[in-house]
Every structure is written in C-alpha cells, then in structure tokens.
C-alpha cells in the first residue's frame, strides 16, 4: 500500500519533468520513460492491493461474524433482540463493521499521501499551498457535521426498516390464518404501514448529502481554480515551468483526495452504526459455567435439589421460593394449570431458566460449578416444539454428537416411534432434513429421538414432548421411554392424566409455588388436583345423547 502511494506521489513530479522535456524540445525520452516505469509499478501494486484489501476485509468480517455467531449461540434462547435482527447482524452488520479496519487503513494512507503532496506544494510553490491550506479546514468542518447527522439519520432508517421486516415476519407466521380469512390485502397494508416513514427518513438522508456535497464541490473547485491562477502567474514570472504547473494541479488533486472521500465517509459512518449494533450484542454477558464438579458423588446419580428458587420476568414473580428434592432415578411429573410455572421449573436443571434467587444442585453440586460439557452430558431435554437442525435425519438425531452410530440413532428413533416414517422417506435416515416434510407430531418424535440418542444422561427433562401425538401413539412412546430410561431421573411436564399417573411422583405447581409432592393416586382424591386436568367426567356426563 505504501509502495503504491509512493508511486502515486512521484507521478506528478515525473510527469512535470517529462512534459517540460517535450516543450523544451529535447529528444531525451528519459523523463518520459521514468514516469512510465513508476506508473506501471503503481498499476501492478494496485492490481495486487485490491485482492489484498478484499482479503483483509473478508477476514475481518469473518472473524467478527464468528465471534458474534458464537456469542449468540452461547446466549441460546436469551438473545437480546428479535431473531431477524440477530441474523441481520451476522450476515450484514458484521460485514460492514469488518470493513472498518481496512477502510480506516486506506483512509489513513490516503491522508498521509495528501500530506506528502501538500508538503511538495509548500516546497515548490508556497503560494498555491497556502491557498489550499486555507480551504482544507473548512472542508473538514463540513465533513464532520455531515458524519454526525448521517449516523443519526441512518439509525432511524434502520429502525423503520426493521419494523417492516418484523411485521412481515409476524404475518408469515400466520399464513394459514390469513389464507383461511382471505385477508392477504389487509395484511399487506398492515406490513407496509411504516413504509411512508421509511421513505421520509430516506429523503432526509438525501437532503443531508445534498447540503454537504455541493459545499464540498464548490470549495474544492474554487480552490483549484485559485491555485491554477497563482501557478499561472508563477509561469509568467518564470518561477514555474508549464510542466510544474501540471504538477501543481496533480499534487493538488492528491491533496484533495483526503477531503474528496464523501462516499468513504458515508460507508465509514454506516460501518460505525453497524459496529455499534454488533458491540451492543457482544456486550450482553454470556452464561458463565463453572470449572467442574471435581468428581462428585459416585453411585446412582441424578438427584436434583431446588433451594428457595425464585424466577422473575418483567417484574412478575413466576416461581416463588420453590424448595424441591427429586431423588435420583425417579420419574416426576410436573402438573399445574397454564402459566403455573411448569416449563420454567423444567428449565432449571439445564440452566435454560436461570434463577433470580436461590440455587439448583445436581447430586449436591451447584449447577453453576459444572462446566458446560458436564452439564449438557448430565441433563438432556426434549421439547414440545423441537427445532430440528442438521443435514440428514441421521445427522439431526445425532446433532452435536458426531460419533453416534447408525445403530444408536435407529434405536433412539424406534423408542420415539419415529423409525417407521423415517424408513418410508426416500433415503431413510440419509434423507436430507429439508426434503422430509413432517407433521408436528412427527417432528416431536424426531426431537424425542434426538434426546434419547443421548443415552448417558442422568436427568431427562421431557417438556410436553409428546403433546402432538395422538393418544395411541403417545401411550406407546411413553411405555417405550419409561422402559428405556428406567433408573434415570425424569422430569415430565404433563398435561394428560395418564402421563401424571405413569410417574412415580407428582409435583403439583400452583401460582409459582409447589402445592404438593405426592404420588398421583394420593393427589387424585383432591378435587382441586382433579380440576387441573379438569371437568373430564362432568363434560362427558353433561353430554346429551
């Protein structure tokens, strides 16, 4: 880059010598050849520099991308912004922010080059240099004001844009309802509502640019005319040769280059806004894991203890000082009405829910002291709506455990009753996930298989993981799972009576507190407990037939 700018800086002086040579009528092609060599070297430098600059920017972008992606993956479900914004940050903002170092480097070299050019001007013709030096500060002031205003407006622009994207996303999630309600046109209007605001901010950005660009243009052009006039007088007085007049014009262009980069400034301003967004995400503290359990108790493992666990969300207390002991190896149903805190509690053993107060212990060890690897090995989850990810179905079930054998995958799938429909797919377990259309129940079964493929965990948390199955299939899956996981601790979020009845113990939650811990049969005599599963009998009896 330095060699390149050196060639650029030499060019006007050599050109001046060559032109003067021509005008003097000396047949010596020496100066012209010198000029040509320097220019050619400059061209080669540039041809090399361009891929280098791109490479640098691409590497910076990649580094930032990976840092951001790792950070977001680490944050898991606790991301500070909507999904779309997170993806945009990785795909776009990181690239823009990644350009900052290279853009800054180019900016610095250009600036240094301009300073050298200015120095040349001062030594060759101080009058011209003075004219330029008077104009430059004004240009800098104009530019600074411009950057400040553009950054601000650009943020407003991004906000309106994000609003449209989020509205569109919401509408996409309701595609079936929209189709059934025939409300496509109303939805279109609703999504496009912020467009007028976007347009207004967009026009404001143009106005800001307009104000700056013409001031800049006029300032530079008039300075140029003035410098040429001064240099022209110099030619008359014999201070300068005609070739040197060209050199003055050439160096003036170079000196201007630092100021002329409005586009570069704009890009830098946008990159700065992008970098700010990325920085805000990176500033969200990731979950902190411990150094390890240092062995821990041997023998049967998987006992869980909750000590005065309180969880709040938005100022509301959702779990209120919960004390609970789950002995190792038992199956425990979490029962309670909607919003009683079942899923929050189920999130505690795997730190998917972080307690605001109190602590959670696994085999007597604080969860915070376990390393991420220890925690994930010890506690496995299956969800009501599993998000499946992976290349093939095999990869999906073995996700994160690349050494899982086909036999283990098939065994897990059989337990989850997913084996049948997977085999009917065109390439069985090697069918790409994207070309395997699945119903909600089928996805649940593949998700459950993914959990069961981790057969070495001590605690299995099944968070409504079979809700999408019909009763017959659900009963089959439950039996298979109960058999396969005998002796492991199971925490089962249960909506169905059978599920609760199948467990060794029921933890009955109400309003964020544990109301009772007892076997299902004992609790069943309590009408309030039956009411959780609700009115089954009365509805049947009311039925007029």
């Amino acid at each position, binding site marked *: 880059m330095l060699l390149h700018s050196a060639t650029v800086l030499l060019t006007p002086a050599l050109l001046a010598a060559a032109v003067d040579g021509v005008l003097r009528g000396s047949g010596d092609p020496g100066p012209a050849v010198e000029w040509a060599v320097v220019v050619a070297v400059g061209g080669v430098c540039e041809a090399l520099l361009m891929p280098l600059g791109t490479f640098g920017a691409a590497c910076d972008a990649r580094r930032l991308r990976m840092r951001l992606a790792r950070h977001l993956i680490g944050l898991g479900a606790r991301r500070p912004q909507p999904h779309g914004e997170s993806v945009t940050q990785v795909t776009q903002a990181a690239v823009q922010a990644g350009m900052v170092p290279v853009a800054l480097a180019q900016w610095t070299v250009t600036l240094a080059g301009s300073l050298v050019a200015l120095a040349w001007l001062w030594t060759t013709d101080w009058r011209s240099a003075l004219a330029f030096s008077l104009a430059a500060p004004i240009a800098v002031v104009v530019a600074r004001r411009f950057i400040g205003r553009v950054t601000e407006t650009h943020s407003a622009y991004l906000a309106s844009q994000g609003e449209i994207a989020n509205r569109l996303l919401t509408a996409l999630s309701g595609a079936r*309802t929209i189709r059934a309600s025939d409300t496509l046109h109303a939805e279109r209007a609703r999504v496009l509502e912020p467009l007028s605001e976007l347009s207004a901010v967009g026009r404001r950005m143009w106005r800001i640019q*307009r104000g700056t660009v013409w001031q800049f243009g006029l300032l530079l052009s008039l300075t140029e005319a003035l410098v040429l006039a001064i240099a022209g007088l110099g030619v008359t007085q014999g201070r300068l040769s005609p070739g040197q007049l060209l050199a003055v014009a050439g160096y003036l262009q170079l000196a201007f280059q630092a100021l002329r980069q409005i586009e570069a400034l704009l890009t830098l301003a946008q990159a700065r806004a992008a970098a700010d967004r990325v920085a805000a995400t990176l500033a969200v503290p990731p979950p902190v894991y411990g150094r390890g359990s240092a062995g821990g108790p041997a023998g049967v493992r998987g006992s869980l203890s909750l000590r005065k666990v309180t969880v709040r969300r938005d100022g509301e207390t959702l779990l209120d000082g919960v004390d609970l002991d789950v002995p190792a190896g038992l199956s425990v149903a979490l029962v309670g009405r909607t919003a009683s805190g079942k899923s929050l509690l189920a999130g505690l053993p795997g730190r998917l829910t972080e307690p605001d107060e109190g602590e959670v212990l696994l085999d007597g060890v604080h969860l915070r002291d376990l390393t991420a690897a220890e925690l994930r090995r010890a506690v496995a989850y299956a969800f009501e709506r599993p998000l499946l*990810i992976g290349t093939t179905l095999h990869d999906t079930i073995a996700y994160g455990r690349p050494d899982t054998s086909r036999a283990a995958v098939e065994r897990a799938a059989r337990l989850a009753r997913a084996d049948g429909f997977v085999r009917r797919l065109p390439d069985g377990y090697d069918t790409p996930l994207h070309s395997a259309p699945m119903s909600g129940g089928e996805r649940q079964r593949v998700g459950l298989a993914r959990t069961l493929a981790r057969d070495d965990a001590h605690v299995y948390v099944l968070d409504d993981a079979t809700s999408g199955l019909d009763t017959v299939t659900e009963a089959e899956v439950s039996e298979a799972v109960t058999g396969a996981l005998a002796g492991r601790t199971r925490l089962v979020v249960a909506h169905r009576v059978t599920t609760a009845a199948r467990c060794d113990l029921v933890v009955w939650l109400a309003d964020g507190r544990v109301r009772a811990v007892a076997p299902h*049969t004992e609790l069943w005599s309590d009408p309030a407990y039956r009411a959780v599963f609700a009115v089954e009998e009365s509805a049947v009896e009311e039925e007029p037939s």
Partner: protein
Amino acid sequence: MTEIADWRPGLRLLRAALRGTRAPVLRVAAWSAVEAAPALASGWVLGRALDQGFLDGRPATGLAWLTLLGVLYALRAAAERAVFEPLSHIVEPLRDELVRRLVHGTLYAAVHRVRTADATDVARLTGQVEAVRGIVGALLRTARPLAVTLVAALTGLAVLDPLLAALVGVPLAVAVVVFLVSMRTVIRRRQSYLAAEERVAAVTGEVLAAGRDITALGAEERAASDVRDAADASVATALAVARASAVRAPVVLLGGRLPVLLILLTGPALVQRGGVSAGAVVGAVMYVTVYLVPALELMTGSVAGYWSQLRVLSGRLAAASDVPDVPGVSNDPVPVPAPVSVSVSVSVSAQDVVAEVPREGDLEVRNLTFAYGPHAAPVLRGLDLVVPSGDNLAIVGPSGIGKSTLAGLLAGVETPLDGTVTMAGQPVRPGRVALLPQEAYVFPGTVGDNLRYLAPDLDTAALDRAVAAVGARELVARLGGYDAELTDPAGTLSSGERQLIALARVYASPARVVVLDEATSHLDMAAEAVAETAFAARPGTLVVIAHRLTTAARARRVLLLDGERPVLGSHAELSATSPAYAALVGHWTAQAPRVPQGSRAGRP
C-alpha cells in the same frame, strides 16, 4: 462453472419499479450536462491560459481564462446540488416499489404455499433491497457523470488537437473492450459470492432459531462449525471476485497511462513540426490525467462492481417478488357476497332459519379425495359428509391420518384432487368459513385490532360478549383492555394466550361455519371446555378437530378418520359399534381414571 443467470426478470423488475420516474430522470440528465461543462472546457481553457496568457507574458489574459474556469466550477457545484432532488425522486420511489412488491410476493407465496420464507429470507431480502437502492443511487451519482465526462473530455481533446485525440482514443477504446470482456467473469464470480452469502444467512438463521435446542444439546461447537464452514466459503468467493476485478489496474494503465506516454514520446516531434502548441500538450495531458484516468478508474472500479451486483441482486429480488398464477386463486380480493347479517348474540339459534333454502351454515362434502402430490398416496379418498347448519361435529383419529387436511379442505384452504366441498350450495372459499389453526395468529397491534380482524366494524359490546364467552376476559383485562398495544405478541404472550385471543376473534366473526383445528391445544382442560362450550352454543356450524376425548364427547356427532373407512356417528354409537373408536376411547379413558383409588393405570 455456473452460467450467468438470466438478467431479464431482474431488468423487468427494475424497469417496473422505476416506472413514473421519467421526469426526474430527465432532470438528472439535464443537470449532468451542466456538470460536465468543466470537463469539456478545462484542458482547452488551461491551454489557452498558457498559450495566450501566462507563457505569452500576459498574465491578465491568463487570469481571465482561469476566471472562466472558476465560473464553470461554480456552475458544476450548483448542478451537483440540484441533482440530489430528482435523484431522491428516483431512488426512494424505487425502494418503496421494491419493498411493496417483495412484501406482496413473499406474503402471497407463503399464504398460497408457493414458497416459504423465514426470518432469514426476510433479513436477506431487506438487505438486498437496500443494496439495490444504494447501488442505483451510487450509479446515478457517480456513473452518470462518467459517460458524460468521457465524451466531453474526448471532444475537448479533439477540439484542442485531432492528432492528440487519436493518440488518446485508440488505447482507450482497446481498454474499454478488454474491460467489458472481463466483466463476464466478474459477474459469474459475484453470483457465486452472493450464493455463498445466502448460505451464511440460511445456516445462521437455522442455527440461531434453534438456540434453545442447541443450548440444551450442548451442541454449540457443532453449530458454530456449521456457521464457520459457510463463512469460510464466503471468504473464498469474495477473494475470487476481487481477483477477477483486479483487471481494472491493467485496464487503467492501457487506457489512461499509455496515451500520456504516447503524447510524451511523440510530443517533441509534434511541437517541433509546429503543428501542436505547448499549451495544447499541457492541456491534453490535463484532460487525460485529470478526467480520463479518474473516469476509467471509476468505470472499472465502483461502477463495474455496482453493475455486476445490480444484475445479480435484481434477479434475486425478481424471484422473491414474483407472484405466480395459481389456478383457481385470484390475486385480487374476492368479492364477498353480501354478508348475511348475523348477530353474535346467542339468542338467535340456527333452528330459526327456514330449512328448505340451503342455509349459510350447511356444509356438504362429495366424493372428496386429496393427496399432497401427484404420486403420493391419498390422505382422503372419496369422502362423503353432510354437516347441516347448527351441527357440532368432532373429527377424531390418530395423528398423521389427515385431520388437519380435512379441516383445510372444509375451509377452502386446500384444493381437493377430486370431489367438492360446498357451503349453502356454493363451493367453499377462504373467507367464508372461519378456520382456526393450532398456531394462533396474533399480530403486533392493539388487542382490539386483533379481535376485530374478521369483523372490523364490531362494537365494544359485541367484543365483550365474545371475550366473555370464550373465557378471555381475564386475559384482556390483564393486557390492559382493547386499546392496549401488543408490540411483540409472539414474545410476550404464551401459546395458550394467543389461542384465547384467536378464539375470541373467530367467535366474534360473522362466519356461520367455524372449524377449530386443535385450536385449544395450549389451553388447560377447564379453559378448553369453556371455549368449546361457547362455540357449540354459538349460532352456526361447528367442526372441531379433537385431540381429547372430552371434545368428542361434547360434540353432537363424531367423524372417526381411521385408515380406509371413515365412520360417522354419535360418541355413544361409535363407542358401541366401532372397535377402532373403542380403542381410542379406551386410551382416552385410561388417561382419566374415574376411580381415584384405582391402580396406577397404564404405568408399566
């Protein structure tokens, strides 16, 4: 090696989006001519200033010429200022139109299931619209003066001295041809780069969407490695683009530097022969170095980059905003027949309507056959079913048997392979039957907006009745009433709460046929009973896809979908006559042991 994608759809899209911008385009063109004036005159003026002024010992004349240059510069600044106004009138409407088309195309495709789009696609499309906006703006700002400058500088040069113009023009023409040929590679590689970037977006979107699952699986490393692979591929393709673009340096050397060398080498001979003045040589070098070289750099640099990007991006946007002709689906709002005035008040019962005329609530299914593809096994085959107005039908069966499909067919959302579904003698169509899917759709807006979604003119009293009927009163009160703004319903409301709002919405709608497709699945049983009882008492026809026994037991009739032959009857009839139903019921009742002291049924 990939072929360059067809440029025509993208071009059509841009042309359509730029429609109506003729006036600003003409204004931009006019101002461009003014802007070019200094380029046209500068070398010539400088030559004059030297020959007649500074070199001739008459500085005043030289200064006068340079003053003229100053005036031209001022004129250019004025033109630069003026050009922004029409520019914004081209670029902003272009973006507006692109956004409009994309939103329509994406929504339309998702609603009619032509294509699906997720968060990643939306993020990508947003980025691409912005890129097109930026590129068109930049092209108009930088490339527009480019052509004018090239022509003006060459003209100025020709006026100065035709021989010098030839020395400049020939290498320049060769350079431009070389450059245009190299553009093909650049465009192709840029396509690969864009594909790689899309892959990054897709992988990132997938990985981040599955955040909770990846945490729970402890699969952070695997997820990060997926993103890394995509990011690495993107770096490689970016580098390939840069390498192909590096051709610009030799092109500038050939077209911009070689002419100067030629002038310098032949200059002595030309000046001595007397045909060319010293001022003309200086002026010619000025034209080339101050105007031609920057113009060439611009053309081979940013303009080439912009152009290749624009080609690729507009193609992508055209694909996403494309609204295909789906047979039987009109792009325009379907004129809804005069709505039957239905009071939501429960006092009007379906029985009040005269039975002879086909009633708004009569559903009739004839020989219905449906399959998901031409080669797929039919999900339904030759189904006949009549659901008279006022009926309450529950559809039961094991998962995957086609219950949701039937719900979609009854609501006119799915198109049957064969057979018909009619309501009051007319084919059903979206909008006439209210279908409530399991995933309740609640959008950002007020609670009232959401409740009035299917009946915009509903008064508060009617809303109150609907909200109370489905058991959502407590929820609405907690949210802050009908005027409360729901900014992020997907994030702040639970699935069950969203289902309650959607239930109230459908209850308040004028639809005479309601199909609930597991629409109460996230409610607890008590809440579900309240909602279903309310819908059963609501005038009109109710079809419920049931996933609990209670739903089937509450219904007047039950349709059991089970393999080859669907069976229809009351809960009691089916329990007595259908072994398949009895099996289902057996499982269901096993769930709810009526004798609490009984052994833990089903516990292995």
